[in-house]
């Protein structure tokens, strides 16, 4: 079974690589099979790792507890499980996503979406403000505090000054309320230069990342697949 699996995996791998020559039926078959299998897998995972433990289990436990409660055999545990009954509200709102199936009632999905978007926005405001704005500004100033204390090497001093200049110029580049002329124009040009160096670094690293993907697949084909033949 394992060798069979390696063979299937290898053949599908080659089907996808055939795309490098040009689009062809093998590639299209593999691609669509992939879409089907992976969506199927996410449905399975979402049901077994999301819906059942988070919604179904507490609710059914609460139902059982309700039964014992009615029969008058309540224990402290059943009354705790009973609180699961309140989950009926979020579950009901979640079920509204199914309104997507009916064109006339589709607007109902706005309710769960609005809650999730309100959630994300509310939690983001104070935390992003602190993590990104305050912490990052603080991080820019700390080296200068050390510099005054005299506990820094020349390299680090140059680095801190560079970071300060680069940050300020980048901020100026992303400043839209003023025309970029004269000194502002010059500073924003320096900002662009810093941005380009940053993007260049990202590009260089991306090459490493993409090459890694290929090496991983080649390693599989050569060591695992050809390994089963030779």
């Amino acid at each position: 079974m394992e060798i069979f699996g390696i063979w299937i995996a290898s053949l599908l791998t080659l089907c996808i690589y055939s795309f490098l020559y040009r689009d062809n039926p093998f590639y299209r078959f593999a691609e669509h099979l992939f879409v089907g299998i992976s969506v199927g897998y996410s449905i399975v995972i979402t049901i077994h790792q999301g819906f059942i433990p988070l919604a179904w289990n507490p609710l059914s436990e609460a139902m059982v507890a309700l039964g014992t409660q009615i029969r008058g055999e309540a224990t402290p545990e059943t009354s705790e499980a009973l609180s699961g009954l309140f989950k009926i509200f979020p579950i009901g709102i979640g079920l509204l996503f199914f309104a997507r199936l009916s064109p006339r009632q589709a607007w109902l999905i706005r309710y769960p979406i609005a809650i999730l978007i309100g959630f994300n926005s509310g939690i983001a405001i104070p935390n992003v403000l602190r993590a990104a704005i305050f912490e990052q500004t603080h991080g820019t100033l700390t080296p200068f505090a050390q510099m005054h204390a005299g506990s820094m090497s020349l390299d680090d001093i140059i680095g801190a000054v560079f970071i300060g200049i680069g940050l300020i110029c980048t901020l100026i580049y992303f400043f839209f309320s003023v025309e970029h002329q004269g000194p502002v124009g010059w500073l924003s040009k320096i900002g662009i230069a810093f941005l380009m160096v940053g993007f260049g670094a990202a590009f260089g690293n991306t090459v490493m990342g993409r090459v890694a993907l290929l090496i991983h697949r080649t390693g599989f084909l050569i060591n695992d697949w050809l390994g089963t033949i030779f």
Partner: protein
Amino acid sequence: MKKIIKCLMVYLVLCMSISIAFSQGLSPPSNVTAVDTPNDDGRSVTIQWDAAPEDSGISGYQILRRIAGGGLEEIGEMLPAGTTSYVDATIEKGNAYAYIVRAVSDTGATVDSEETAPVKGTGEWFHTGKIPLFVAMLLFSAAILWNIYDARSGKEVFVRRIPGLEAVDEAIGRATEMGRSILYVLGLGGVDNVATIASMTILGQIARRTADYETPLRVPCNDPIVLNVIREMVRTSYLDEGRPDAYNEENIFFLTDSQFAYAAGVDGMMVREKPAAVFLQGQFYAESLLMAETGNSIGAIQIAGTDSEHQLPFFIAACDYTLIGEELYAATAYLSKDPMFLGSLRGQDWGKVVIFAAIVLGVILELSGVGWITSFLQRVR
């Protein structure tokens, strides 16, 4: 009766331990205070005491507590010497607790401090340590709201020149002259994506210009909902320009929903139709490179724009103009003149001015040895 015996016992134990301590020269922890921990949910009490001198012979501390009228109980593990505070997070709400700090020497001798006054844990409704964060949040919200309000009242809001946008007319003009089409790619985002919304707005504006020139505007989509929205948008643009006859719904169509197939389809269109201008605006992932490279190889003017930071290097390298991150949002405001976008853009600029000022001022102050901005930022919680 029981109580009296208990008290007597405690008294005896106390006397004994004090006498032992004195015989060893151990002095009791001084200035012991127990207060309700500030800015918590009411489930802890903070106990503090003075540090003992180094030669005190103390090897550790044990905290003891008593619910009013009850017996003494040991709380937590033995604390190492040098500790001067302890947070008891095991209290129950509604009870008042009194604390004793017991100093322990190497030989196991102990000496107890005086018992503190009983204290209750109460939860606070507002975390006073977060005042700076709270104020900053309010100020920024006010700035955004005021600017949107100001823009709505019809005041002119200035947005700087964005080079990529000036090339839009050039690109459309060239396509018209050459009698070729314009290809507009919206990326892979859904209707809820900020970059996609921005891209749809820009498309609406470009459609106004192509309507005049009757240049074909081809838009392959990968999201059925986005498709419906932009068909509506582009039709409106053509209507507004008085050219509903020039609108061809088949030019805006669904290609496929999967990433690489979409990129392959767009590449195929580029090679076959050889558009004179290619717009790549919106949210992009790894497929960005495939499309930008093909567009480059057919010699089209390419104007890209995305807030997907990781794809920007490829656009910059392979396209003629690229709207970098926030520039995409600014472009939306610039082209659509929507007060909401314009106002927020200026509000965000105000935010940047404040950060800018904090950095410049902070550096100057730090270098002259005044550290209050840095220590203020550090205290923000």
